[in-house]
């Protein structure tokens, strides 16, 4: 890590504090130490919201070497940091005050924890003499966030401040990544100490395994050579490891088709015949059929989440299971594993690539292809009156040539996007997978665009989720971000309505949701709003939005009771998935 001595911190009046004692290290305030540590970590963006406990820290921000993005709600700071991290591969950083500022982060931390997103969250804490006395805006945020962080700290001494940042970034970004929280009492921001950023971290209790046991790799290679109906199950771990090139080489060499978890989309191009796409609850029919039929399943960097597996006893019932994961606790947690390989995905793929033989699986591919559900394509040829969600997603993919970063909220629109966008590149699909956080789409788009200004960004959001985080439009405007927001508007909390439709005898309890006129709402924020009510308007609206600089909102008014097909009913095995024809005649 670069330890630069030239960056001037803080506001001009703070320059005097940078005295140089005999050690040669500058003496800085706690606030300046935080800023300098972030600079030394190469942080270019911090998503935050000021408040009482962090006022001294904000005092030092104007001179700092990174950009602060003022969000409109602390939770969006965490989710924007996630969007940034997912788009760039770098840790996302968020900064909020004590008490409610800190508690508002909790959902974002849990989201990052479940999706293994590297994040460093900084919270202010009340002054040290008041800790434990129920002071104004005091909460025990380290206690509260214990189960939703990879690790957390309450810093008690100014001399621990810089080493804590070094360790926090190390923990957040190595092994299985995750969120790390640093809680800093206000008193520390105002104390002074010599600043020397540590070069390295050593913790006896933290030694993540990166290189696999060769014996296990050979067992995996042997299984691959013997299998007649093999499948790769590609998860987020491949992206986190930066190993998509190696994975592509392995797939092409072995000729083994790829199924994706929700977060594993983009690990292998879906435009390639071997890229089969989404598995699980709303997975493609041929994908779930292939899982049912396969004799070998090689899971790389996925955790056998219940939405991917369905009922585990019926999951891939004929398969010999190889599970490659950097986290040993995932081995055997949900699904029995025959060959565990504990290591970084990239390291395993590198070794595996030299152990496997060139191969093809034509019969197996033909079998899978024969299981494709062609009904949807046929249905769409009729060109329905409503803007059909599948058509919207497909048009978006075509117009952007599949190059855009897509963020989503949670629910029907998310599944439509996951099924039909066709992801061909890594790190372009940013969605809340594990936690399923409504409101995720817009703030994560803000973070993604700031992290990757060179890429087009589309936020696909439902009308319910958009009403949770629409206030973040103000941030997009303030930062003048060129993002496009597609609200898939059915006037319902659609996924809940769909479950009520299918599993609760159409008892539509509290799912009809009113909304403001989104086009006018966009205009109120000073941005362009477009309303789409017919199939013919879809493409022109997408093209118009792309042509306009700055945020644009498109309100796609879709059929109120459109469902996501297919669906594996809750508690059922993937083989028990329901299809549109069977249900609607």
């Amino acid at each position, binding site marked *: 890590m670069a330890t630069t001595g030239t960056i001037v911190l803080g506001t001009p009046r703070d320059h005097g504090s940078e005295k140089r004692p005999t050690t040669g290290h500058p003496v800085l305030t706690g606030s300046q130490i935080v800023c300098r540590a972030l600079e030394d970590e190469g942080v270019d963006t911090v998503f935050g919201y000021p408040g009482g406990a962090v006022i001294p820290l904000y005092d030092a921000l104007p001179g700092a070497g990174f950009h602060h993005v003022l969000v409109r709600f602390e939770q969006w700071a965490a989710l924007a940091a996630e969007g940034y991290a997912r788009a760039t591969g770098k840790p996302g950083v968020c900064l909020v005050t004590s008490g409610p500022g800190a508690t508002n982060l909790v959902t974002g931390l849990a989201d990052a924890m479940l999706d293994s997103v590297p994040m460093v969250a900084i919270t202010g804490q009340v002054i040290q003499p008041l800790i434990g006395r129920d002071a104004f805006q005091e909460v025990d945020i380290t206690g509260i966030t214990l189960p939703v962080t990879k690790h957390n700290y309450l810093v008690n001494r100014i001399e621990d401040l810089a080493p804590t940042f070094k360790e926090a970034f190390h923990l957040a970004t190595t092994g299985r990544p995750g969120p790390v929280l640093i809680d800093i009492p206000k008193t520390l921001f105002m104390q002074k100490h010599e600043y020397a950023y540590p070069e390295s971290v050593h913790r*006896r209790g*933290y*030694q993540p395994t990166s290189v696999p*046991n060769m*014996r*296990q790799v050979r067992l995996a290679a042997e299984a691959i050579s013997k299998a007649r109906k093999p499948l790769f199950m590609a998860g987020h771990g491949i992206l986190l490891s930066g190993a998509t090139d190696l994975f592509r080489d392995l797939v092409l060499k072995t000729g083994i088709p790829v199924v994706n978890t929700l977060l594993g989309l983009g690990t292998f191009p879906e435009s390639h015949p071997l890229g089969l796409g989404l598995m699980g609850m709303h997975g493609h029919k041929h994908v779930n059929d292939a899982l049912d039929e396969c004799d070998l399943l090689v899971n790389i960097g996925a955790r056998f989440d219940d939405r991917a597996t369905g009922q585990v006893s019926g999951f891939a019932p004929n398969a010999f299971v190889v599970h490659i994961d950097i*986290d040993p*606790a995932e081995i055997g947690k949900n699904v029995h594993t025959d060959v565990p390989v504990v290591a970084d995905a990239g390291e395993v793929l590198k070794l595996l690539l030299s152990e496997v033989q060139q191969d093809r699986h034509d019969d197996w591919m033909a079998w899978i292809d024969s299981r494709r559900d062609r009904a949807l394509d046929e249905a769409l040829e009729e060109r329905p009156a409503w803007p059909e969600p599948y058509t919207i997603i497909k048009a978006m993919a075509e117009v952007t040539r599949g190059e855009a970063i897509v963020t989503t909220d949670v629910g029907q629109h998310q599944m439509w996007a996951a099924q039909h966008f066709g992801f061909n590149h890594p790190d372009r699909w940013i969605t809340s997978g594990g936690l399923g956080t409504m409101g995720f789409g817009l703030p994560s788009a803000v973070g993604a665009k700031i992290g990757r200004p060179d890429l087009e960004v589309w936020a696909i959001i439902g009308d319910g989720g958009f009403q949770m985080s629409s206030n973040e439009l103000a941030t997009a405007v303030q930062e003048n971000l060129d993002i496009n927001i597609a609200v898939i508007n059915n006037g319902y909390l659609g996924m809940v309505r769909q479950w009520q439709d299918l599993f609760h005898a159409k008892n539509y309890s509290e799912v009809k949701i009113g909304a403001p006129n989104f086009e006018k709402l966009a205009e109120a924020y000073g941005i362009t709003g477009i309303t789409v009510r017919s199939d013919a308007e879809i493409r022109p609206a997408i093209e118009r939005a792309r042509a306009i600089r700055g945020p644009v909102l498109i309100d796609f008014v879709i059929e109120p009771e459109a469902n996501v097909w297919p669906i594996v009913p809750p508690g059922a095995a993937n083989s028990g998935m329901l299809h549109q024809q069977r249900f609607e005649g």
Partner: protein
Amino acid sequence: MKTRHMLSVLVEDHPGVLNRVVSLLRRRSFNIDSITVGHSEQPGVSRMTIVVIGRDEEVEQVGKQLYKLMEVLKVTDVTPLNCVAHELALIKVAAKSQTRSEILQIAQIYDARVVDASPTTLLIEATGPESQVDGLLNMLKAFGIRELVRTGPVAMMRGSTTVGVKESIRPERELAVAGNGATLHAN
């Protein structure tokens, strides 16, 4: 089948470490039968003995989850190992002049000793395997137990074997060879 497992856990002696361990066990729905914490032979390292009830694979999963805590250095399921597992109990038992000598005899059988007395009670200190303490309590029940505190067991392997922290543990090797995740090191 759910059985009792005794875990020896070496942890860095940092503030909040007990909270982290207990919170993790609660979150994974584990019932703690007993837990003891104290210093180990290494400065800065505490040793916990945690007794939990669960199926073997559940306990293995708990071991792996414990390893994800930064402060946890070593987790050993000592249940199947040849170890000494002793606890300490303080028992305040009702004692009249007529019953006192009988209680003293019982205490003697169980290697327990009287550490305090009053005109109406005896305070007995017992150490040993849990079954031995159970036996003593069973015998004293009839006299009336006024107050009881048990520490839960602490355990240590017999012979020269130790559960000390090895440097650079290779998890998948142990997993592949022994199939025993209870000694897995993970992050």
